[in-house]
């Protein structure tokens, strides 16, 4: 049952990314290009998602368990450390270079886009490098 609902959530998430224009790197770069002909429309993607998400997470916080009886794994950390900031900056550079972030890249890969496949392969390699590096540390960062 967990797998079925997770699959459906992924499906809806992916259609949302396609509908919103997030799977078009040209549009994403247009959104990031504030020095050129800035296309602010992708800000509405975040607005729409947060509008729904705000109420969903507020409701989730008041519950002890998920509808399927699983633990609600809400992040608890509130500290702002160097890994968070430096990691986000590195991610942002990669995002700006190609116009892909993880979700849209996977969705485009699913549509058979060869360039998205190259990006996804490199992204997985990056995650693997991180996982290998973390294994040498005394604890795992929560992914």
């Amino acid at each position, binding site marked *: 049952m*967990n*797998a079925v609902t997770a*699959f459906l*959530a992924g499906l*809806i*998430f992916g*259609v*949302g*990314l*396609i509908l*919103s224009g997030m799977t*078009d*790197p040209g549009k994403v*770069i247009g959104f*990031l*290009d504030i020095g050129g002909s800035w296309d602010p429309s992708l800000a509405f*993607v*975040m607005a*729409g*998602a*947060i509008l*729904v998400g*705000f109420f*969903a997470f507020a*409701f*989730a916080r008041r519950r002890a*368990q*998920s509808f*399927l009886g699983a*633990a609600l*794994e809400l992040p608890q*950390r509130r500290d702002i450390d160097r*890994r*968070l*900031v430096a*990691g986000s*900056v590195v*991610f*942002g*550079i*990669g995002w*700006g*270079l190609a*116009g892909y*972030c*993880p979700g849209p890249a996977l*969705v485009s890969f*699913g549509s058979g*886009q060869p360039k998205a496949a190259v*990006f*996804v*392969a*490199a*992204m997985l*390699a*990056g995650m693997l490098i*991180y996982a290998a590096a*973390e294994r040498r540390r005394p604890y795992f*960062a929560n*992914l």
Partner: protein
Amino acid sequence: MMSFAGGVLIGLAAAMLILVNGRVAGISGIVGGLFVPRRGDVTWRLAFIAGLLGAPLLALLIGVRSAPRIDAGLGLLLAAGLLVGVGTSYASGCTSGHGVCGLSRLSPRSLVATLAFMAAGMLTVFLLRHIV
């Protein structure tokens, strides 16, 4: 406003995953978690990813079309993918985990992360398009 409608769908999917499965819809975290596998924690990740991969087919069936413009060449795609993979791992999240779910939770960590990757993305595009 297709962007807003798409955003609402993304929000609904994130709502479904947290309320039904008890998990945060952060794509980099869902994928990255596969590299540190724990018993009982793998299937839902693969199922969610399968949903993402299947989304273009569903979009096609319901008449949602997209014509992506991808300017980046092979080298740039490889470099970008690597940076996104490493960066999101260290930051514990990406556009979905921090930008959507984290901001929905009013998390200060996610606000800092979102401002940082937005600023870095904008600066990168500025340098690439207007300086180099």
